[in-house]
């Protein structure tokens, strides 16, 4: 299908200089091209582009999901930023989410790299370990919540039992405001399977010759790790940091299942709002307090923030292997 296009490259038709292949619709093979991407395009427009644009519109309105939206201009945005009567926990949710991101992303990457190094170093049974370490990723979120509420239980929890062995006193993990974020970040690190697989691929792509050269030059394992492995993995790390931060800023399911507990408890984000993730805050306003307009505005604030953060990372972080 593509061959006629290739055959008519301008370089091969010097008879008509300046006349280039017209891009766009109109030619038969273009039509086929459009047809082929049509399903993806239709999906993109209906399920992503249109809802996003609609959300942008609703963010300028006061809308409760069933009566007609009322245009209020920028009021949702200014109220979110400055009116702490209307949105008493907006800034708290920002703070919680940033703290969570700062703790969870490095912890996840360290756990993922550690696991990848271990799997990479064993010769037998690496498939089994890879499977076991990946399991937390494919476990249903509700089950993850139930398991970890048990593990963190102040009376019977395994976490306290293990820490007790080394003399650390019992903690009430999910009910002490200061401990909530570390506890959540630890669960995120436990679910680092995808990052682990990507790191593993990165490790496999480091040429053996470089390692051997380092060994000949007399570099020990620690030196090899910091001078060879870490620099060679830089593109992988960059990718994982960028995607990890985006995911951490949008954390929702984990917080929701950890704090929703028994069916009748309402989710207000843990003790003293210490686990009130930004997206949980959006959810509450959208579906519990019927303030869809404000929720849409919060979503857009998050979108812009993520775009800025990602841009800054692309601009200032080293991406190339060295």
């Amino acid at each position, binding site marked *: 299908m593509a061959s006629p296009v290739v055959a008519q490259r301008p370089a091969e038709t010097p008879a008509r200089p300046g006349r280039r292949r017209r891009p766009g619709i109109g030619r038969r093979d273009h039509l086929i091209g459009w047809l082929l991407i049509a399903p993806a395009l239709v999906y993109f427009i209906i399920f992503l582009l249109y809802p996003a644009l609609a959300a942008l519109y609703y963010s300028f309105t006061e809308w409760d999901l069933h*009566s007609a939206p009322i245009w209020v201009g920028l009021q949702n945005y200014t109220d979110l930023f400055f009116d702490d009567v*209307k949105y008493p926990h907006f800034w708290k949710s920002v703070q919680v989410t940033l703290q969570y991101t700062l703790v969870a992303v490095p912890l996840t990457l360290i756990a993922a790299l550690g696991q990848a190094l271990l799997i990479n170093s064993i010769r037998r049974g690496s498939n089994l370990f890879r499977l076991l370490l990946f399991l937390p990723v494919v476990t249903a979120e509700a089950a993850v919540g139930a398991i970890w509420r048990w593990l963190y239980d*102040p009376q019977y929890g395994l976490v306290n039992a293990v820490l007790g062995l080394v003399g650390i006193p019992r903690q009430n993990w999910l009910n002490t405001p200061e401990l909530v974020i570390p506890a959540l970040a630890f669960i995120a690190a436990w679910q680092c399977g995808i990052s682990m697989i990507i790191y593993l691929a990165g490790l496999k792509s480091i040429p053996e010759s470089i390692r051997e050269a380092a060994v000949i030059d007399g570099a020990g394992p620690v030196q090899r790790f910091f001078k060879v492995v870490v620099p060679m993995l830089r593109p992988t790390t960059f990718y994982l940091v960028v995607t990890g931060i985006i995911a951490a800023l949008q954390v929702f399911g984990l917080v929701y299942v950890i704090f929703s507990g028994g069916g009748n408890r*309402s989710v207000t984000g843990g003790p003293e709002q210490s686990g009130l993730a930004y997206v949980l805050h959006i959810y509450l306003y959208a579906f519990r307090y019927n303030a869809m307009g404000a929720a849409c505005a919060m979503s857009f604030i998050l979108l812009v923030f993520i775009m800025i953060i990602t841009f800054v990372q692309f601009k200032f972080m080293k991406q190339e292997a060295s």
Partner: protein
Amino acid sequence: MIRRVTGAAAAAVLLAGLAACGGGSEEGGAGSATTELTYWMFQDRTPQAGEVVEKIRTDFEKANPGVKVNIVKIPKDDYNTKLGSALAGNTVPDVGILDQPLVSRFAQEGTIKEVPAGTLNEADFWEGALNTNKVGGKLYGFPIDHTAVALFYNKALVPTPPKTWDELKSISAGIHQKDPKVAGIVVPKGDGYGAWMWPGVVGGAGGQMVDEANKKILFDQAPAVEALQLWVDLLPSSPREITDSDQAFANGLAGMMISGPWDVATIKDQFPDLDFNVAPLPYKTTPAGNIGGENAVVFTKGKNEALAWKWLQHLTNSTNNTTLAQALGGFPVNKEAAERDAATFGEQQQAFLEQLKVAQARPALPQWIQINDEIIAPALESALSGKMTAQESLTDAANKTRALLGWNS
């Protein structure tokens, strides 16, 4: 050839479909034109519940020839979202269940109809349940089944349940003193759930949350402060590190807890050895309690209004209300049904029936869920964690609520 065969097959399918449609409409007609009433409700909890609802439906259709009730069952978690889209898309049901806190919002917007005079005899219903349908003194719906919280107690640790706050405090202290590993009572937390139960305690000191008619916030006054102080005072004998454990009461780690009838079934099922019972909430001056449950309303955009009210009368009459409430997992709101059938409820359920008699509806303000979750819950937590006194945190919360609602006092 193949094309012709498929064509014939398609035609046959089409004809069969048409025939089915034709058959359907003739069947329901029974001589006169069929009137269809659409009723939305939460999905059945059990297959048995489905049978109960089905029987009530066929009874209604038999009593009203030419009427067909079309019941649409929707999972509870999706209900409000689906209803929201239906209202936006003009495909509203004629009549349906509505979450209690939404009644005031929908009434103010005109989404639901006021109950016409003479449709419902107020004296037939428990006042608290009825009041959850009132907005600005006017009635906008029927209570269907309701529930409340009460005091669960472990009989091994609490031989006689406390009736007053003083008894509650001394029993709680006694339990913890006897065995420091056991807490007196699971003190509710400063979250949305705790804030939902708390008005029942405020009522126990003779107080109220707000005075809607005069636009006054009352939860910073003495009864509310005393109610919060009660929870604070219970904490030393009920340490969080014990009560935050999963199922602390059912595991025998706490002598008492405040919860609803749903926990009776769970505990009996999962902890068959626990010897427990349920008593009405202890009070200071007046027996009181909170309330939650299902109301049903008639939608302005729906059809067959008269029939819709008739259907709601049918669901809540003294014949049907108990079986329906039991199927839905709550308690009857029809006084006659509740008193006549009290014995059909188990031993541990009696306290909830008692609570419903004295229950107080939550304030009929559209913003109430938000106030409950975002303002009152954190205020309770501030006092319970010792960051502020009960009075300080409630004064602060009351001021925030006044600012949010634009009320001056």
